[in-house]
């Protein structure tokens, strides 16, 4: 929704070249960067032969496909499969999987519910919880920063703000399943589905009206529906969208920041001296490794993008993680550098009308927990090899073994 005009392309383009790689295998997901490089350097748009879809990985094309809803719609689903076709097995997200102008009214109603004014009032509670998390890890010294910092913090403060009760272990399993479901129906997805089967009934119940805890913003979503500000029967799907979008990505971003800072002691020392720098450290962390890696749109009508001819009704895979390392946009893109001017430029929160609605919550969570750590911890270092959870469209750490040295 930037007010700056976007370039319009007309005429006929060339055929996108075929890239015969499956991005959704364990091998590629374990280290997606060689695939990203291949995708970016082959052409502005490629065809992923295996899925019969297009893919983009350069900053400019990613930005265009995410924001130009007149040519690239969300209404046919922001996952790999076309929700308009028979056999659609995923239920629609009422907020994400629609386009302006329908989307605009709903987005504005939700923005009122979690406006910057509302979010700023949560800060004191977040700081109290951060203090508790830091007290505990300072006693432990040897920690898994994913479990003991990122999950311990986010899985406490976010469900409390939303007003839902989500046990930690359920949150992780549900996250795996949801971010796998955006991609193909492959073995990785099927395994995550089997894992959540025992808790699916609980999950379906967790976002219903009667599960909302008094005072949370989930309850406000139901009230807004009652007041006619949101479409009838949209509240359960909207609360579910916040459960899906509000936890795993923030946990991932905090994990990435700590992973990189542990590898760059000089940059940690800067944060320790001036905790105000954690804000830019977090932005750089999610540029350097983007939690939400892949989203999809659908070509509305035959069009030209980056000089390539695209055919209507085909899906376009958008690789945000690739765009955030595009050397056309970033110098030394593979280096983590907290002094980089990243904020408002990287695409980790998406772009356009569907840009992450909870981004100011995520930023405040990251800022509060990372600055609490930076103040009280002199040094962090890796005490083992970090591992990743392999998920079709989410990049996140499974385990980050750290040794912390308090002040």
């Amino acid at each position, binding site marked *: 929704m930037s007010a700056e005009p976007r370039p319009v392309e007309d005429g006929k383009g060339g055929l996108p070249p075929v890239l015969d790689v499956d991005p959704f295998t364990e091998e590629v997901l374990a280290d997606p960067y060689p695939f990203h490089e291949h995708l970016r350097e082959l052409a502005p748009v490629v065809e992923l032969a295996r899925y019969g879809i297009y893919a983009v990985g350069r900053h400019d094309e990613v930005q265009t496909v995410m924001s130009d809803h007149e040519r690239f719609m969300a209404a046919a689903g922001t996952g790999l499969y076309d929700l308009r076709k028979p056999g659609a097995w995923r239920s629609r997200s009422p907020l994400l999987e629609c386009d302006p102008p329908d989307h605009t009214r709903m987005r504005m109603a939700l923005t009122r519910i979690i406006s910057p004014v509302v979010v700023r009032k949560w800060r004191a509670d977040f700081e109290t919880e951060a203090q508790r998390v830091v007290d505990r890890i300072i006693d432990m010294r040897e920690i898994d920063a994913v479990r003991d910092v990122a999950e311990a913090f986010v899985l406490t403060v976010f469900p409390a703000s939303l007003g839902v009760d989500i046990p930690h272990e359920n949150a992780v399993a549900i996250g795996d399943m949801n971010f796998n479901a955006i991609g193909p129906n492959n073995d990785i997805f099927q395994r995550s589905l089997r894992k959540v089967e025992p808790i699916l009934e609980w999950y379906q119940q967790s976002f219903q009206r009667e599960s909302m805890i008094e005072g949370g913003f989930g309850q406000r979503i139901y009230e807004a529906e009652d007041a006619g500000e949101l479409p009838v029967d949209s509240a359960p799907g909207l609360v579910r969208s916040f459960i899906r979008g509000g936890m795993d990505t923030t946990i991932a971003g905090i994990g990435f920041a700590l992973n990189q800072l542990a590898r760059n002691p000089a940059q940690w020392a800067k944060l320790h001296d001036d905790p105000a720098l954690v804000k830019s450290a977090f932005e750089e962390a999610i540029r350097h490794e983007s939690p939400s890696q892949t989203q999809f749109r659908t070509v509305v009508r035959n069009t030209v993008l980056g000089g390539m001819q695209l055919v209507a009704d085909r899906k376009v895979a958008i690789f945000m993680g690739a765009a955030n390392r595009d050397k056309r946009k970033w110098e030394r893109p593979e280096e983590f550098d907290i002094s980089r001017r990243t904020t408002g430029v990287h695409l980790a929160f998406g772009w356009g009308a569907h840009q992450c609605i909870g*981004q100011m919550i995520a930023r405040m969570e990251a800022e509060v927990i990372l600055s609490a750590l930076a103040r009280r911890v002199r040094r962090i270092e890796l005490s083992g090899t970090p591992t990743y959870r392999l998920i079709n469209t989410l990049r996140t750490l499974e385990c980050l073994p750290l040794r912390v040295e308090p002040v």
Partner: protein
Amino acid sequence: MPKVTFINPDESRVELDVPVGQSLMRAATAAGIDGIVGDCGGGLTCATCHVLVQEEFLPDTPPVTPNEDQMLDFTAMGRHPTSRLSCQLVMTEALDGLVVRIADPQL
């Protein structure tokens, strides 16, 4: 190239050349003006690029959209009659010489 003057919260002034078609938010963040945060990059989600437009320039600024109107209510400093989000102020020749005061705080 048209010029814009930003008045910082400490009353110091910075004059920038802003190309036609670029937003004031983008020009300010690129120039390292710390008072303009611009967290969301112009997506009307953060309300952290709040400025007060000097009154005589108001008629030449683009109209306030419903989305901007809503976000102005959520600014950290609070809304004034001349408040705008600088991501929505796209430079034109007519705005040459524009003066804006940077709101404080932004977060």
